[in-house]
């Protein structure tokens, strides 16, 4: 339940699906539908749902089988089985297998509301416990923008321009591109630079925690609110408020924020007194908000408020020229932090870093440098110190769809690692040279091009 509450409705009957989705959307939840077990399992791979409604009888993969997979792979998602009158026994079986509850079609309105409320409350508690544990483990880190590539130079001059005015800014860019650094730079160059810079990641809180984080609360606003607390809106007075992952803000809170932006005042949770605020708003997202507006999961009026100026932060693969500078920047930092005598990076290692497409962007490069520095035995980082970035498939967000595509990508990378040396590559791939030659021809790969 980090950010918005997300619900998946799995039922092969279109009218049931539409009816339930429609009802849940009226409560402002982000709801999607799947017409069968197979589609549901596909959707679960790309997105985490807080609550899943599962029809027991479906033609392709039945609800019980999907339930087993959910319990095994996504243990934090709540599952509710939907059944027709005829299959009460199956529903009981589902409860034994770990379903959180079940409903018989058609539902009593009260049953449905109470069930959804109860489960989301349980989910909230689970998530808050996870958050508490993770909070202790995370390490804070600060860094600056680095880059001499053309697109970064354009970005820098854009920041200069934007800093002169006071309008809201929306930063768009993939995860790990350094959107917070851009926001900080805008703040640092603006008239508000002597005021505070207050960042908050909207995707890192449950809905109710996010509300009190943003708006603050008065004593006794809810159980546990033993003393009044200032929210980030108040802290940002005179400065810049940075809302990261704005796409995760629940619809209802979008209304509250829209109101703050229009009226320049708000009140704390559980409070009645108006508090006037004056801050500059910078937001960031990796989501495609115009598409979310079409789907009704993001408010159009709120979007237009945020998006007075839009800045795109380029992914690392579009500024490969910056990689040597960035790599050295991170090397300096980790050398100091780890006290290891790593003095530089070999050219071949830099070439290798520039041949990779960095789906996790600057953050992935930063992590790669940290790992290389920690594990390195030499005074200079070599290509071998970075070989792991090609091996870990899990960080690859632009995951190829077909087996063919996968094979092509893999061969390309291995060839790059081996400087286009066919024998070496064939050895690593555990195929003979002829086979590799044939594959290169088949996929129209040019070993000389992929070589550094």
């Amino acid at each position, binding site marked *: 339940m980090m950010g918005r509450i997300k619900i998946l409705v799995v039922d092969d009957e279109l009218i049931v699906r539409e009816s*339930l989705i429609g*009802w849940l959307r*009226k409560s*402002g939840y982000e709801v999607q539908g799947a017409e069968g077990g197979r589609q549901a399992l596909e959707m679960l791979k790309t997105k985490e749902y807080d609550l899943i409604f599962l029809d027991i009888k479906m033609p392709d993969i039945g609800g019980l089988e999907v339930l087993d997979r959910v319990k095994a792979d996504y243990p934090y998602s709540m599952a509710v089985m939907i059944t027709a009158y005829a299959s009460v026994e199956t529903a009981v079986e589902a409860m034994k297998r770990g379903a959180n509850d079940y409903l018989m079609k058609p539902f009593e*309105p009260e049953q*449905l*509301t109470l069930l959804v409320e109860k489960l989301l409350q349980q989910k909230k508690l689970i998530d808050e416990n996870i958050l508490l544990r993770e909070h202790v483990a995370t390490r804070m880190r600060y860094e600056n923008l680095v880059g001499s590539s053309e697109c970064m130079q354009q970005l820098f001059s854009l920041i200069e321009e934007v800093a002169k005015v006071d309008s809201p800014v929306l930063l768009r860019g993939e995860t790990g591109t350094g959107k917070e650094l851009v926001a900080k730079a805008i703040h640092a160059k603006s008239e508000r630079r002597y005021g505070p810079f207050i960042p908050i990641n909207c995707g890192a809180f449950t809905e109710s925690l996010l509300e009190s984080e943003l708006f603050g609360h008065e004593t006794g606003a809810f159980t546990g609110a033993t003393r009044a607390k200032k929210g980030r809106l108040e802290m940002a007075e005179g400065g810049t408020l940075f809302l990261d992952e704005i796409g995760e803000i629940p619809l209802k809170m979008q209304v509250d924020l829209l109101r703050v932006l229009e009226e320049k005042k708000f009140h704390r949770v559980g409070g009645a007194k108006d508090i006037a605020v004056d801050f500059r708003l910078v937001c960031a997202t990796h989501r495609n908000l115009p598409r979310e507006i079409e789907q009704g999961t993001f408010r159009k009026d709120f979007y237009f408020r945020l998006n007075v100026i839009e800045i795109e932060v380029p992914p690392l693969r579009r500024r490969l020229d910056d990689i040597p500078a960035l790599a050295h920047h991170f090397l300096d930092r980790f050398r100091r932090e780890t006290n290891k005598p790593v003095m530089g990076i070999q050219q071949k290692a830099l070439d290798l870093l520039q041949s990779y497409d960095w789906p996790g962007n600057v953050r992935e490069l930063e992590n790669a440098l940290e790992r290389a520095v920690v594990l390195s035995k030499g005074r200079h980082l070599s290509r071998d110190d970075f070989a792991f970035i090609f091996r870990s498939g899990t960080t690859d967000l632009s995951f190829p769809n077909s087996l063919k595509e996968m094979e092509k990508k893999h061969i390309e990378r291995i060839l790059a690692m081996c400087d286009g040396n066919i024998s070496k590559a064939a050895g690593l791939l555990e195929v003979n040279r002829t086979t590799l030659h044939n594959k290169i021809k088949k996929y129209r790969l040019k070993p000389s091009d992929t070589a550094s």
Partner: protein
Amino acid sequence: MTKVKPSTLRLGIVEMGRLGEIALRVVAANLQAVLGIEVDFLGPHEVPENAYQAHRQQFDAGLILKHLSGCAFPKYPRILALTNLDLCIPILTYVFGEAEMGGRAAVVSGFRLRHNEDGTAVSIDRYYERLAKVALHEVAHTLSLYHCEESLCLMHFSSKVGQLDKLHILFCERCAFMLQTSLRNLAEEFASRHRKKPVKSDKQKAREARPGPSLRS
């Protein structure tokens, strides 16, 4: 609780089945007073045939909405059907009313509002009050309002008449703000769509500005 400022949105009310003129007038007056919108009566309207669900002996509210929003009432961006039919949707055993989220049509039924949960009849005033509350709730859905957690706000979801009775005939501050925003956006949209049309005569303007619901049926 905050009051919504008046707006130029026009809503047309149709009667589906027999509900009675007083019920219609009460609902209209409440829509005008609380939402600040203009309301006209558009007369009786037939029940779409496909809406009847023989196996449940009820009427599918979603199908009624689909039918209504396809009807040509060019002057009315929002249509509300008032009915005495027993309404349901595919996943729920009954509904008091239903609306297209951010869409054009809403339907409200008095069928389940005349009695309490224990079967006792309620006074006619209480019945009208319930009808008005459900109508305000559903029309607000067509203005993109979601269900609200404030237990006394009109947008709080009520599954039973007892809960409905507890509601104030008002929107909470957040919902009132949301309504204001939606109504303003709608008015702007409407104005830009009709900007190129010839200017209305003063007579026409006077007629359209006439206060209060006018019975046209």
